[in-house]
């Protein structure tokens, strides 16, 4: 099915462990984004990518690593998970060719991560 899919939907991990959240889109969109959503903070941008092999930091990048070797995949890795990284993580893509801000973001259904 076409769209943007995230896996896993739910993940529980321990402090200090490495965990990778996956994001796959079938639209061949150039732009991909990772947001985290927390009560009281709303959606905050972690990292984004304008194309394969091009990534850049967002508002809250510390403790996260991303890569984009293929256009369709944009994994997010927590190198050493901390309790403060407990959150719901959303991946999004945009097919913008002009101003990205005028184009819709297409979100996945999120990964709920709990760090114990």
């Amino acid at each position, binding site marked *: 099915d076409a769209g943007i899919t995230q896996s896993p939907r739910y993940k529980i991990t321990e402090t200090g462990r490495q965990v990778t959240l996956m994001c796959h889109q079938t639209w061949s969109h150039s732009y991909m984004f990772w947001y985290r959503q927390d009560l009281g*903070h*709303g*959606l905050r*941008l972690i990292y*984004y990518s304008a194309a394969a092999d091009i990534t850049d930091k967002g508002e809250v990048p510390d403790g996260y690593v991303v890569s984009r070797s293929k256009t369709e995949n944009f994994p997010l890795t927590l190198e050493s998970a901390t309790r403060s990284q407990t959150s719901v993580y959303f991946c999004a893509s945009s097919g913008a060719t002009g101003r990205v*801000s005028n184009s819709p*973001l297409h979100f*996945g*259904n999120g990964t709920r991560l709990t760090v114990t």
Partner: protein
Amino acid sequence: TQLLEQSPQFLSIQEGENLTVYCNSSSVFSSLQWYRQEPGEGPVLLVTVVTGGEVKKLKRLTFQFGDARKDSSLHITAAQPGDTGLYLCAGAQGSGGGADGLTFGKGTHLIIQP
């Protein structure tokens, strides 16, 4: 970082009533988007407004972008239980095209009771 304040944070009303939610900032935005998010799902775009003073309608939903492009409102007429959800506004600032993503407000949690 530009700040988007949404109000009210929570709103619970009866089916059939009208309501307005607001998205305000002290900064000027080049464009503003409204999304709706249902539990367990990602946000889904409702509308994008670009021009100051612009009004867009989506069935019973009316969106307005302020003349100065610092604020926006969403008005729902005759609310229905299916309108229940988290409404998010998101803005882009500057001439960079917004490639670094949008800044989101914290959202308005709307519950429409049958």
